[in-house]
């Protein structure tokens, strides 16, 4: 019998093993839901899959009677716009800061202590400040996400720049590279795949800050809806929304992973 560390599952069994916990969770839920509903048909805590499906259908395919909007898609679009803009701004800011701090010693001396300090501010603690200064509209919500993730991504990327072998930077200079050319041809190209990794890791925080901002002051959005219907214990709305948010996050992660694998073939580990 080989050691456990040397027993590798085949493709099929790896897939089966991966799916298994999902199936178990689903079965447990259905079972628990049936038990509770058998006790009390009006129970709201664990709605039956059929109730969830009906509610989801109403939200995703019927117009809301009061506003005339299809709420699910309005919420999705609002949230995606916010998180998309915030991620794009964060990535741009983080790249600019990281390249400056990582490459130019004077900029490092100027900005590095500031960045380390800003990264320590708990973003939710300054959410009221953002609402007061930037108003309750989109800007403050996007700003919260940016403040929440950009400093961490920037610090991570600056470290990655520092990890580039010194020999590479020296070699580039002996090939005639100016500071600008070192950034353009040596540092930036090697930083893109690392930016993707850093964005993947910060995606969780980004959703956290989005939902927090939407929960507090918003009129639409996935987080807004969850916190709105919480008042009515509407688990049949909350659960599909949570699953949808998770699915969106998983898809974004997958897309970033694919982008890294296709666009930066050199950075992929050898198989």
């Amino acid at each position, binding site marked *: 019998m080989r050691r456990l560390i040397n027993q590798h599952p085949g493709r099929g069994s790896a897939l089966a093993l991966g799916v298994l916990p999902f199936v178990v969770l689903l079965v447990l839920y259905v079972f628990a839901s049936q038990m509770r509903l058998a006790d009390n048909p009006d129970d709201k805590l664990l709605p039956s899959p059929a109730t969830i499906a009906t509610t989801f259908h109403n939200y995703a395919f019927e117009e809301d009677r009061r506003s005339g909007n299809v709420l699910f898609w309005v919420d999705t679009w609002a949230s995606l716009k916010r998180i998309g803009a915030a991620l794009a701004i964060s990535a741009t800011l983080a790249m600019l800061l990281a390249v400056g701090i990582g490459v130019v010693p004077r900029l490092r001396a100027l900005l590095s202590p500031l960045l380390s300090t800003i990264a320590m501010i708990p973003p939710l603690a300054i959410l009221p400040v953002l609402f007061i200064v930037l108003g309750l509209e989109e800007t403050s919500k996007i700003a919260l996400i940016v403040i929440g993730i950009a400093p961490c991504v920037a610090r991570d990327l600056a470290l990655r720049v520092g990890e580039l*072998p010194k*020999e*590479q930077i*020296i*070699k*580039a*200079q*002996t*090939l*005639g*590279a*100016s500071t*600008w*050319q070192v950034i*353009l*041809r*040596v540092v930036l*190209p*090697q930083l893109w795949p690392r930016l993707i990794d850093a964005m993947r890791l910060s995606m969780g925080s980004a959703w956290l800050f989005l939902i927090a901002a939407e929960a507090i002051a918003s009129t639409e959005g996935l987080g807004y809806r969850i916190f709105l219907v919480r008042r009515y214990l509407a688990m049949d709305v909350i659960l599909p929304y949570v699953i949808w948010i998770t699915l969106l996050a998983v898809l974004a992660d997958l897309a970033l992973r694919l982008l890294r694998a296709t666009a*930066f*073939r*050199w*950075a992929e580990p*050898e198989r």
Partner: protein
Amino acid sequence: MATVSVRNVWKEYGAQVVLENLRLEIADHEFVTIIGASGCGKTTFLKMLLGMEQPSRGQILIDGQPIRPEPDPDRGVVFQRYSSFPHLTVLENVMLGLELKWARFAGRLFGGARRAARASALAMLESVGLAHSRDRYPAQLSGGMQQRMSIAQAVICRPKILLLDEPFGALDPGVTADMHQLILKLWAENRMTIFMVSHDIQESFALGTRLLTFDKVRHDPQAPEAYGARVTYDMRLARKTSETRTVGATA
């Protein structure tokens, strides 16, 4: 043309003296090999020639001019490792120097200029025997091939001086013999002065026209850092060509 004058150069890190009072006159087109125990300042000397480190006292001149205190294209370098760019293919690695020279702002060439750079890079790869691997990434190459690429990458910029820091230290003996032929060929074809740090005495005799050994002459057991290394032997050797059988190959 590249003569090098080292005038009373000292290198100290605080109280630790690494090199003391180096005085050398190196003629144009010399192949200088440098050996010595580890920690005796060979690499520090090379770093000063490169401009990565500055002498604490004294001065280094190239063609009578003080060297610039930072690396520049007059002085090419091949390190033992990490001297290629992992995100560029072999061909792109070799083209890089030409692109940097001709495209100061964009850093890359397009159209006819790009085709010209590509053609000279391909010719260079041909001459180091890497043309067939031009579209591979450095990580996909063996150690010997990576060093061939690094040498091609440095030589295509036609540096006056080529600095080699134990470039063949990590290679298999058979590969090393091939590399010796290659470097002698390139040295003969391009009029450059070569400085090579090595830990291999045979190699140093086989390649060099001038061999320097670095060693500590004075030693104070109470203060091991008080004295630095000097050039203890300075030998002039016969000129080799790539046809000469190197000692490494016959041994």
